[in-house]
């Protein structure tokens, strides 16, 4: 809802988990906010492919901003879950030590956790570890238990934040690839590659992997975001190896290691690897890295089998320095830099929303609470989570709830239609929103049905059907 002058108060560049949290936080105030992203849907960058962990607050020292934001952010998830519609559960985290040296590291993590004020953190004997997580390797020597740690579906979190932000007046512009930022008076004019422009008083650079390039476009600080690739395997929900807790190895100085994650939605994720790259678009998986994941995961949960693998994928973490870089730019006026948000960025993201709001306030943005701010979004029904009796009731009002499109993840036609109507008009958009194509057949049975529903609901022709926007077209000809 732009004001008469056609100018927004704030333009946020990047609709990942940081941008979405910032947008939603600002939507509580009488402001005109626009959230732009270069991809065809929100959450299509770093936020779509990561471990989906709400971390336990023991990995980082409090002297770092990221540790403080992690602790604060982790506490905010319960309320967010009440207000929004995304899968989240505090299943707890165990860190397993397999050698004597690792037990010493566990002790340090424990002390750091206690110092950070982590609630319920425990040092565990082998027996205690096996009691907490019976699937763990019986050769474990002991470890750490953090009951507050949890799991979240990261893209669903972003979708719900964006939905809430939209409901409270934030505008979303996708396929908006920023190519110029001009300052005139107290106003930024941001131009996209396709010629669209947005005028805003303040700007936020939450561009993830591309925060360095966006900073350069603004004429702000020079820095370089280094992508660090993480490859994952996804296991079938019927695997016998599914643990009850998130299982971490003892971390190294570059990463938190390869985890075994029981996802909120019932599958199992193993990974990520950590490989420094130069190419920010390199999401390829490699045989060598994938082999590493299996062997590493098996040292913690020996029953993990390659026969349970349903897909592999890679995500990129945007690394900068040891700490997050969240500050007002010293070079470009009225620009907030939100860069280098690698792990635990997802956990910290709600606190980043608060932090950026405060930075903007200090920079002069007037925050007046909206009288009609509504923090709640409607919860969408998911057939997968309902009893036959509940589905029968839903189907009485809308029969499409009883028309199953995705058999593996139990997604009905009504849910696909809801995704498309909410603006997720690519196959990946529908996948992240509904889980259809995410199960064991990986879309073998439902892809054509989803293509037809997208065409029916949007009027798009076959030429326009894409995997994730741009040139990722699915079809080449029609008979």
């Amino acid at each position: 809802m732009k004001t008469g002058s056609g100018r927004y108060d704030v333009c946020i560049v990047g609709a990942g988990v940081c941008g979405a949290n910032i947008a939603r936080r600002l939507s509580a105030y009488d402001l005109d906010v626009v959230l732009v992203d270069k991809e065809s849907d929100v959450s299509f960058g770093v936020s779509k492919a990561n471990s989906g962990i709400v971390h336990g607050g023991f990995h980082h020292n409090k002297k770092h901003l990221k540790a403080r934001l992690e602790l604060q952010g982790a506490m905010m998830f319960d309320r967010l879950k009440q207000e929004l519609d995304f899968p989240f559960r505090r299943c707890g985290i165990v860190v397993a030590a397999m050698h004597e040296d690792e037990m010493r590291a566990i002790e340090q993590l424990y002390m750091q956790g206690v110092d950070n004020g982590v609630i319920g953190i425990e040092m565990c004997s082998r027996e205690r570890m096996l009691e907490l997580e019976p699937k763990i390797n019986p050769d474990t020597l002991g470890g750490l238990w953090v009951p507050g740690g949890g799991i979240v579906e990261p893209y669903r979190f972003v979708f719900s934040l964006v939905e809430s932000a939209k409901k409270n007046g934030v505008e979303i512009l996708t396929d908006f690839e920023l190519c110029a930022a001009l300052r005139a008076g107290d106003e930024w004019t941001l131009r996209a590659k396709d010629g669209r422009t947005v005028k805003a008083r303040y700007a936020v650079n939450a561009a993830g992997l591309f925060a360095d390039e966006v900073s350069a476009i603004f004429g702000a600080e020079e820095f370089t975001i280094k992508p660090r690739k993480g490859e994952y395997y996804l296991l079938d929900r019927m695997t016998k190896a599914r643990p009850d807790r998130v299982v971490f190895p003892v971390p190294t100085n570059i990463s938190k290691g390869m985890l075994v994650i029981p996802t909120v939605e019932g599958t199992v994720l193993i990974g990520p690897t950590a490989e420094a790259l130069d190419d920010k678009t390199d999401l390829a998986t490699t045989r060598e890295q994938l082999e590493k994941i299996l062997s590493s995961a098996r040292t913690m949960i020996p029953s993990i089998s390659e026969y349970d693998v349903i897909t592999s994928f890679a995500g990129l973490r945007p690394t900068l320095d040891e700490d997050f870089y969240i500050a007002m730019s010293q070079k470009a006026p009225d620009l907030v830099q939100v860069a280098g948000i690698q792990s635990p960025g997802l956990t910290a993201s709600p606190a980043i929303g608060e932090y950026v709001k405060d930075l903007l306030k200090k920079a002069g943005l007037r925050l007046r609470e909206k009288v009609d701010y509504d923090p709640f979004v409607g919860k969408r029904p998911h057939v997968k989570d309902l009893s036959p009796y509940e589905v029968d009731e839903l189907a009485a009002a809308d029969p499409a709830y009883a028309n199953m499109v995705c058999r593996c993840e139990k997604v009905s036609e009504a849910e696909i239609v809801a995704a498309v109507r909410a603006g997720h008009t690519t196959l990946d958009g529908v996948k992240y929103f509904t889980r259809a194509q995410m199960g064991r057949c990986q879309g073998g049975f439902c892809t054509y049905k989803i293509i037809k529903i997208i065409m029916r609901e949007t009027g798009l022709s076959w030429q326009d059907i894409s995997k994730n926007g741009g040139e990722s077209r699915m079809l080449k000809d029609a008979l």
Partner: protein
Amino acid sequence: MKELNFDAVVIGGGAAGMAAAIELDTAGFSCAIVEREEGLGGILGQCIHNGFGLIEFNEELTGPEFAERMEERLTGSKIASFTGTTVMEMDARAEIKTLYCYTAKYGVLRLNARAIVLAMGCRERNRGNIRIPGDRPAGVYTAGLAQRLVNIEGLVPGKNAVIIGSGDIGLIMARRMSWVGCKVHAVVEILPYPSGLTRNIVQCLHDFGIPLYLSHLTTRIIGKDRVEGVEVTPIENGAMMHEKAFVIPCDTVLLSVGLVPENELSKTAGVELNPMTNGPVVDSMLMTNVPGVFACGNVLHVHDLVDYVAEEARRAGQNVARWLKGDKPSREARLKAGSNVRYLAPSRVDLDRDNKLYLRTLIVKNGAMLEVKVNNRVVKTQKKSHIQPSEMITVELGPKDLESAAGSPDPVVEVSIN
């Protein structure tokens, strides 16, 4: 919630489900077919090529024609067909079994039955299952999905394709894609011999000049938005020859890398599976370990001809009818896969009746000898002029063959190939 009672419910309305239901109806039992697609026929509907029906109907039919013939047998029967209906839950523990089925027509439908026939077929293995690394662009399809898109939706997924795996659907699609103006650059097979039927190699590859790379592994898929190529690495003496790897440019990858019986529903109902087939372990009546739950067709083990599916399913239907009347085998023997045999289905034989066994071998051989032993004594041999893993072998065993098993407390019938 609408609730209906039947003697038997058949899950799946493909060739197997229809054949089993027809037998049940003929025997006078009330029977329903639950089919998730909008029509009966299963995957036959998209298999518009011919080669079906030579055994079942004594003539060469296309897939849709085969399905139509089966459906004709259904007309006039009392079989209730619920199409567009997906079985979401199955409780098979009690004597009366309950299925919760979701359908846009009725909402949730509760079906109660004394017997259940599993006939859900199989699904295609995909990229993730065989763990092909690389980029994740658009343009990677399973061959069956591509077949559906081309033959039913009239949509062509690509113009330059490479087919990974030489399974039958892949071979059929190599020809089909060529016909719709797509250049098929290669079929890449990891094994030293093709996985599909010989007739398909000849008719779908040789006739179109499509090269088949045997002993080649697809090591990478390349392409940011859309597929741009695949990297293929030769295998020599079991080792990957990385220095000989090459890239085949293409915009589409079709995967034909095997089928897996789709038994997730069976598992939730407590049905025990055979890890060699991924299908249920069944006795001589094709009944699973859960009393009253039977299996037939591709959900039991992957067949190579629909004619065999129909034949096996017909026997399943007859057995269910027998079982509903209280008839059970009085004496059974355990079947054991011997040398060079990958699996046998079913897992038991009835000593007093004619049995038909299906098996797959692990080897490729000309002039092989199949041998049946009862408690380590050879009772039957069969010469086989040519065997290979992709072609199913059938064996018939009657009461005469199995005579010597009588009196033994735990008789074992072993089938081997040498």
